């Protein structure tokens, strides 16, 4: 299964190399980076915690759905533990014969990772206050909705 939770820094160059295939004509990747601000507050650090015994089976479901819908090869790596500004929180890589499938699948996967993978983010601000992020989905209650591209997402 092409899923990894890791406390180590994510290496996109190494992950990309694992995706190489002479049959693939298109490669789309997505990375979520830790920003220096969120909703007006200066972010010093994020802390991701996960339910490690549950996450792999959920990731596997998401990857299987993407393969069935879009006929792609795909992988997900999510970091946990403390992250600093500029760190990669999540990486998704997708290959396919043609580009359209890679974009749709990559978007499908990251949307569902954010909505369904049992991982939670605490923001620690430069003033030392901290907060668990309540919801990063703008009220999208149903994963089926995630196939639609939201104009204004969080």
């Amino acid at each position: 299964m092409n899923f990894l939770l890791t406390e180590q820094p994510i290496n996109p160059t190494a992950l990309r190399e694992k995706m190489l295939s002479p049959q693939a004509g298109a490669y789309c990747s997505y990375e979520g980076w830790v920003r220096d601000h969120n909703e007006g507050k200066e972010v010093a650090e994020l802390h991701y915690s996960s339910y490690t015994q549950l996450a792999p089976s959920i990731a596997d479901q998401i990857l299987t759905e993407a393969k069935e819908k879009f006929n792609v090869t795909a992988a997900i790596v999510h970091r946990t533990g403390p992250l600093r500004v500029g760190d990669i929180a999540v990486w998704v890589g997708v290959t396919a014969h043609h580009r359209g499938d890679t974009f749709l699948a990559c978007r499908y996967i990251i949307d569902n990772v954010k909505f369904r993978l049992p991982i939670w983010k605490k923001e620690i601000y430069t003033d030392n206050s901290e907060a668990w992020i309540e919801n990063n989905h703008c009220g999208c209650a149903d994963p089926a909705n995630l196939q639609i591209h939201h104009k204004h997402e969080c």
Partner: protein
Amino acid sequence: MQIKVLYFAQLADLAGRTEEQIEVSERSAESLYADLRTAYNFPHDFKQLQVAINHELSAHETPLEEGDEIAFLPPMTGG
């Protein structure tokens, strides 16, 4: 009946622990959560949480069994 409860994220912070054994008399996850919510001041309504039993997502009304490990999962915020 002994149940193991796993806490994650905000719930772990509020409970001050990541897991504990609890003796329950009812087999209802909702009733168990109501007790925990009172004890630890959890902010979520039961229906806002997903329920995992023995490391699998489960329906809210699944009856608890002796020795189950249950987790109440706040909305996920990875990525």
